[in-house]
């Protein structure tokens, strides 16, 4: 029997029971739609989170004091015996090949007073390389100047929100600002950067790291951030940094985290999340599959005559098996297609209705879902189709 004929025969059988086929198909459609919708949301969240983390560029390596051992990283703020990372360490890392920038980082929360107003905000102690490491842009004035260690002047660069809060539309350049008892002169304002996981990146003040150490009365840096040339493998740069710092410290008492590692881990976690929600949708798909088994079993019973007739007309057992399997697969595949449209449509509508909710339909998942639907049809059809193929034609023709 020609394949196209088998398909047509199966389709005719499906369309001759419109309501029944539609309802069966709906079971699969709902399952597939659920899978599509849930994975769309999962994938959307995945992309959103990764985007948040990569907005500073992907070629960043962070170095923090203290070696992460099996006990985990010592929580910051609690005194540790780990040797401190110093301004000199940060400066030394600038010399490593492929490294394009290295900024010491110290941060804290302080009251910033200027123009007669007061605001509690996050204060970062960094150096001139910060602008490049975190791909920030200066709106007016300039960023912190490049200075030799030990002679950093008391300058401050404001985040755009802090500037608005303190100075409004006035020109803040040259104004004096007091942070934790020390006076700073405003030399620049950064362009707005938005939020990162709910933290306002524009409600900040940037001062030289040396001054920040003074403000917060710290001996060592909290972190050093290093950027390296695009295209250079992060592991190579990380190894060079490790080498250099070990030489300076005498042992490995620091932790290097490349953003690549971090993103990979994060991406893996989010992938598992997407798969997990997809599997939840899969449960409804299984229910749909049971519906197909039911309807196909009924169909075989109802069409006993037809099966006997087909055998009498010279259909081979395999042909009968194929016809009923084909019907089951076709039913499921049609349901899958409907679910695909339903799911993707709902995802799109969600995107329109709730622009904040990250939704993205991953088409490989959609394709996977369609293949899954067809496989469920195949699986669901096996029992009824085998039953059909094994019918005794004499009995089948006799039943009235």
């Amino acid at each position, binding site marked *: 029997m020609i394949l196209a004929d088998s398909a047509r025969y199966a389709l005719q059988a499906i369309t*001759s029971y419109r309501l029944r086929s539609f309802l069966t198909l709906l079971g699969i459609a709902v399952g597939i739609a659920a899978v599509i919708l849930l994975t769309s949301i999962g994938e959307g969240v995945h992309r959103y989170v990764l985007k948040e983390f990569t907005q500073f560029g992907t070629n960043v390596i962070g170095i923090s004091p203290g070696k992460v051992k099996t006990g985990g990283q010592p929580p910051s703020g609690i005194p540790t015996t780990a040797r401190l990372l110093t301004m000199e360490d940060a400066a030394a890392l600038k010399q490593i090949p492929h490294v394009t920038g290295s900024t010491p980082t110290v941060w804290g929360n302080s009251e910033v007073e200027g123009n007669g107003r007061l605001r509690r905000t996050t204060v970062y102690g960094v150096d001139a390389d910060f602008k490049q490491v975190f791909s920030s842009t200066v709106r007016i004035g300039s960023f912190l100047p490049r200075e030799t260690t030990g002679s950093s002047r008391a300058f401050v660069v404001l985040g755009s929100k802090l500037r608005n809060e303190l100075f409004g539309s006035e020109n803040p350049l040259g104004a004096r600002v007091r942070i934790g008892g020390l006076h700073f002169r405003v030399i620049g304002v950064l362009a707005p950067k938005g939020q990162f996981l709910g933290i306002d990146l524009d409600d900040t003040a940037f001062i030289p790291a040396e001054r920040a150490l003074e403000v917060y009365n710290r001996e060592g840096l909290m972190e050093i951030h290093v950027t390296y040339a695009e295209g250079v493998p992060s592991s190579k740069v990380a190894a060079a940094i490790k080498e250099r710092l070990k030489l300076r410290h005498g042992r490995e008492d620091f932790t290097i985290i490349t953003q690549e590692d971090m993103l990979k881990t994060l991406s893996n976690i989010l992938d598992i999340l997407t798969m997990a929600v997809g599997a939840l949708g899969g449960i409804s798909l299984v229910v749909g599959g049971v519906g197909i088994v039911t309807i196909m079993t009924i169909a075989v019973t109802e069409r006993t005559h*037809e099966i006997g007739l*087909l055998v009498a*007309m010279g259909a081979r*057992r*395999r042909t009968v098996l194929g016809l009923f399997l084909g019907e089951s697969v076709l039913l499921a595949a049609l349901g899958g297609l409907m679910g695909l449209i339903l799911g993707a449509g709902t995802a799109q509508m969600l995107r329109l209705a709730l622009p904040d909710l990250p939704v993205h339909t991953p088409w490989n998942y959609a394709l996977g879902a369609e293949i899954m639907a067809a496989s469920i049809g195949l699986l669901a059809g096996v029992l009824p189709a085998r039953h059909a193929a094994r019918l005794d034609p*004499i009995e089948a023709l006799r039943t*009235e």
Partner: protein
Amino acid sequence: MSLIELSGIERTFLLGDSEVHALRSINLSITPGEYVAVMGPSGSGKSTLLNLLGLLDRPDAGTYHLEDRDVTTLTPDEQARVRSERIGFVFQSFHLVPRLTAAANVELPLMLAGIVPAERTKRVSQALKDYGLTDRAHHRPEQLSGGQRQRVAIARATVMHPAVILADEPTGNLDRATGEDVVTLLEGLNAQGVTLIVVTHDQTLGARARRQLVMEDGAIARDSGKG
């Protein structure tokens, strides 16, 4: 040369604990172009004989030669092929597929045999024309009268040009006049050289055949063909 040659055919069924001898030592020879009526009371083994001739059933013992070929030893797939190409069935209750049009019903055997669509269309329209069903081609069985339904079934049985037509009570569900038409149709086919074997209760229908087999308790009690 004979078309059908049965020798020493035995067939028993198990009904509960008791064995039923449906066919016992059947020896039968039918030559091409014969018109045979198989008669006898219910349970005499007529239908079993017909099923056996149609390769829907296998004998427990004995051999069945169809066109000088031992068909009892064939594999199920080979038997399916013989059914497809050499045998046409006509049933009492027509057994048309209700969701398919008359044309599609006639087309079924051709489709199962894997004949290409262009050739199928040609043969189907010819068959419908032969049986006066051209204007009924796109009607479904429920829209056809009993006589028309049986004509569709006969068209379906003959569209593959079989050597033998096995008809099981072909007029059983028809009134006398339409039954008469159908029998005339079948006899017309026989006149063209197709071997016709009809199983019937109906004495008058049976009497029209050139050869009568009367079965009793699974054995051939009388065979008018054996002189």
